[in-house]
């Protein structure tokens, strides 16, 4: 997994070690996809419970990859989203953390659907290949290509104009 934050971080063998090492980047990525830090925290928790049910992983298992795939699959799970629609969280809709850092990109990402944002995060930020993303989400490679093409076209004007 090229460029993954966790790849260079030594961690112990326990689930607790894995939790400490992997939770931060997992929440960060989930927050970019679902655009809600609370929901991202929830999803990360659910993902780690799934991991706990399988722990210990075999040595050849790439823990970060497993977490990323399961977490992002959950993030685009339509049934889970529909359940959330019936509930209005009593809290501020706080996007200030994103608006302070890069409001243009945040808004542009908001025009994409979750699966496209997930594909962008996995490929552009974490270096997964399109084949790997296709396998992770159970869709043909061409579908991932079309998601990414759509996503890139949406952010291209932003990156070309501002170029920062």
């Amino acid at each position: 997994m090229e460029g993954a934050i966790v790849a260079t971080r030594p961690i112990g063998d326990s689930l607790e070690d894995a939790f400490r090492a992997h939770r931060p980047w997992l929440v960060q990525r989930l927050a970019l996809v679902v655009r809600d830090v609370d929901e991202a925290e929830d999803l990360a928790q659910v993902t780690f419970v799934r991991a706990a049910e399988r722990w210990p992983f075999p040595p050849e298992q790439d823990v970060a990859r497993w977490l990323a795939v399961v977490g992002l699959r959950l993030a685009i799970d339509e049934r889970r989203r529909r359940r959330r629609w019936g509930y209005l969280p009593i809290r501020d809709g706080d996007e200030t953390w994103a608006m302070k850092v890069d409001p243009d990109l945040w808004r542009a990402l908001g025009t994409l659907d979750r699966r496209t944002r997930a594909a962008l995060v996995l490929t552009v930020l974490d270096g997964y290949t399109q084949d790997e993303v296709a396998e992770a989400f159970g869709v043909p490679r061409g579908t991932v290509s079309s998601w990414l093409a759509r996503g890139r076209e949406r952010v291209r004007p932003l990156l070309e104009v501002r170029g920062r």
Partner: protein
Amino acid sequence: MTEQDLDLRLRARLDRLANAVPLAEAAQASTQVRRGPVVWVRGLPGRLTLAIGLVATVAVAVWAGGIGRPPGPASTNDQGIESVSIDGPFELTIRSTKAVYEADEPIEVLAALAYRGAAPGVVIFHGLGVAGGPLAFGVVEPVEVPGIGLVELVGGYRLSCVSSILDPAADMSEPFAKGGHPVDEGPGGPSFEEVQRYFSDRVLRLPPGTWHVYAVADFSVGGCGGERHSMQAELTIGVAAADGSIPTAPPPTPTADPGDLPIGADTQEGPIQLTLSSPHRDYRAGEAIDVIAGLGYWGDQPSVTTYGSSSLGPVAFWLRQLDGDVQTGSGGTADCVSQSVLRANEPVQLPFSKAALSVTGATGDFWQGWHGDPDLRLPTGTWEIGATTEFSLAPDCSVPGPVLRPSITIVVLP
């Protein structure tokens, strides 16, 4: 700008955004100690909402003046009412201090979950209701709220799974807590601040009318996804008008267009489940139609391998125009070449795919939205969109497996 340059810039900016995400303190085991009847809650989320099970629930409504009797005038009623739902050793009780309230008087409703079994205690696994516990509350009828319009108060949970110990000596009780959403959430609807102000006010007030207020307890025993118990207890509460009468006319009905509501179909055979859903029923002509299938395995094995006759995977899509002649095949082939692994409890989400669909009865309008567009766009009309999974669990496809075929109806408006 080349794609590589674009990706490099995008990566740098995504990285900055990711690093700005405000992270909460990492949850630890035994993170919360709750005072009162809920003895202990620890951070152990899971798949509560995906558990499948049926329970028999007995609901008993007890009115101060007799079972099922509607509330009388406000001046003659000052006694409490309660309703109990029983599910094995569990009891869910909802109580109100009065059967009839004045208009806009605070409605005092409390629900309690109790364990009446022989064990010294039982650990239940549940999502978090609005009040942070295993109980959720709602009102069957939409409520007219000044400044907001109609609000649907629905008992809902956040998708977490925490555990609580239910002690036979101490019921777990919570006052009514609001959760829900305005009926009109569109651009012309109420502002977020108005809605937040309403839901942040913990006091429930209702206009004159007859209201059905309920509490829900949805939990499992034996772990997240274990034996599920889903209980609901309901009260009928009257709110009197200024003249003391209680309007019997039905409260206003929601004005939400059913076409804006999510739709879905859910089919299951044994441990295999196939769902099909769309965020809403109605689409405009030219709008991309978002349809997603979910194929899940909920059995005891870590995973199963499916062997099927479609080279495109375990799920094939199809559509049929209900007010026209267009229909498609489902893109399957007659061999046994395709195999997929379904991991337990990790449903795979598959967006509608046009690949390999043969189309009959189509006109020019249809083809304009079909070729060269990865999204599904359909001409004006009513469309049945379906997904089919038909596979075998035997490598040579010799043993028939589940055949699931959920479908939903989409309306494409001009």
